[in-house]
């Protein structure tokens, strides 16, 4: 395909890799948090809720800086990862994925939580009385019934991580082929006069990507809900 240069293809591929890995790994965590916040009352619940929202409130650059403090080479987690597993996150695509994941988390948790709260708990009771364990009732009732929220969370999270800039450039830097995702490339283009057309191509690219994600999720919802939509 000739409408993209090889570099642009590489950037696209990297962005996709970073976002998909980020969202894939964050989904279960986000869902667990959403479930806790929706269904459990425990001390510190409000605190957890606030913590989850943090990356939304704090400017992305600060989030990136905090990631550096915690996951950097000198950081408490980063040094352990480095010494024990030889894993370094800063300046690596894994770091970009971590940044994308943290920034997407609050959006995902909220959407999932809304859907979990909307699940009729009496159905869980019915499942239990039919012999389902707590766990099976969760897997077969709560989880599938909160699918709209899971999909909405995935779409929001994917879009957010495709667009993530501030935390990524601060924590993972702007290394072509390693951490230079679409928004970083777009930003670089914007810094130089006269690069508007390159920027536009990249912007169209990220829009196309999210449009695809959007279409996919709509399709999934339709396929899943089929004809069981309510009638007036």
């Amino acid at each position: 395909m000739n409408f993209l240069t090889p570099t642009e293809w590489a950037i696209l591929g990297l962005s996709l890799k970073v976002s998909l890995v980020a969202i894939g790994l964050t989904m279960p965590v986000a869902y667990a948090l959403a479930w806790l916040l929706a269904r459990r009352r425990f001390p510190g619940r409000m605190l957890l809720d606030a913590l989850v929202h943090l990356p939304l409130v704090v400017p992305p650059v600060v989030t990136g800086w905090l990631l550096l403090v915690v996951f950097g080479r000198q950081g408490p987690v980063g040094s352990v990862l480095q010494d024990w597993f030889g894993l370094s996150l800063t300046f690596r695509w894994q770091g970009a994925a971590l940044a994308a994941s943290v920034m997407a988390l609050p959006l995902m948790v909220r959407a999932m939580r809304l859907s979990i709260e909307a699940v009729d708990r009496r159905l869980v009771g019915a499942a239990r009385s039919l012999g389902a364990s707590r766990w099976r009732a969760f897997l077969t009732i709560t989880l599938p019934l909160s699918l709209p929220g899971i999909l909405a969370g995935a779409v929001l999270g994917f879009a957010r991580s495709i667009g993530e800039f501030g935390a990524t450039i601060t924590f993972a830097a702007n290394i072509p082929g390693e951490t230079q995702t679409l928004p970083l490339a777009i930003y670089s283009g914007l810094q130089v006069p006269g690069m508007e057309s390159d920027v536009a191509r990249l912007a169209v690219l990220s829009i196309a990507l999210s449009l695809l994600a959007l279409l996919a999720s709509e399709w999934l919802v339709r396929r899943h809900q089929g004809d069981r939509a309510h009638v007036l």
Partner: protein
Amino acid sequence: MCFDIALELVRGERRIACTIASDAKLVALTGPSGAGKTSVLDAIAGLLRPAHGHIRIGETVLFDSAQAIDLLPERRGAGYVFQDMRLFPHRRVGANLTYGQRDGSWITTDEVISLLDIGKLLDRWPATLSGGEARRVAIGRALLSSPDFLLLDEPLASLDQPRGEEILRLIERIRDELTIPILLVSHDPAEVARLTDVVAAIG
């Protein structure tokens, strides 16, 4: 004894008390609207915790506040036909029916489907069922979980006479041939009189 139940429940500001001690295989639970019949069934199924009391059905102690016994709902072996059906909206009728299915069921899926005449509904979503169709699917789902006892909350509501008659006969067979304890909530005295002469009234 088949049923040995004595419990007290709190719902909002109301206290509901219920005592049943009987060897009859089928006991009818009656009482005015709002007396607490559904609440008692919920307590027996383990979905509502009584303030105190005990629940024994057949040989099994399901709940005993004195002995601190409180079986999980899934361990109680209840076949509960809910007053409000509670079909799983995201599973087709067929998948609803088999949800609680266990090996060694005393009734086969085919038998249930033909007895309840729900063969044509298997591929439908619950939201598209009529009231009586949903009721029959709810009955089928409970039967297929091969329960140790049945809790039937107005199982014949919104069913036409021929279909109701069919189900009454099925209940009689379960009571007599399978000797499975049945607790039935009904507002129809004729229905009750036909099935049992042990009536527990609350409220």
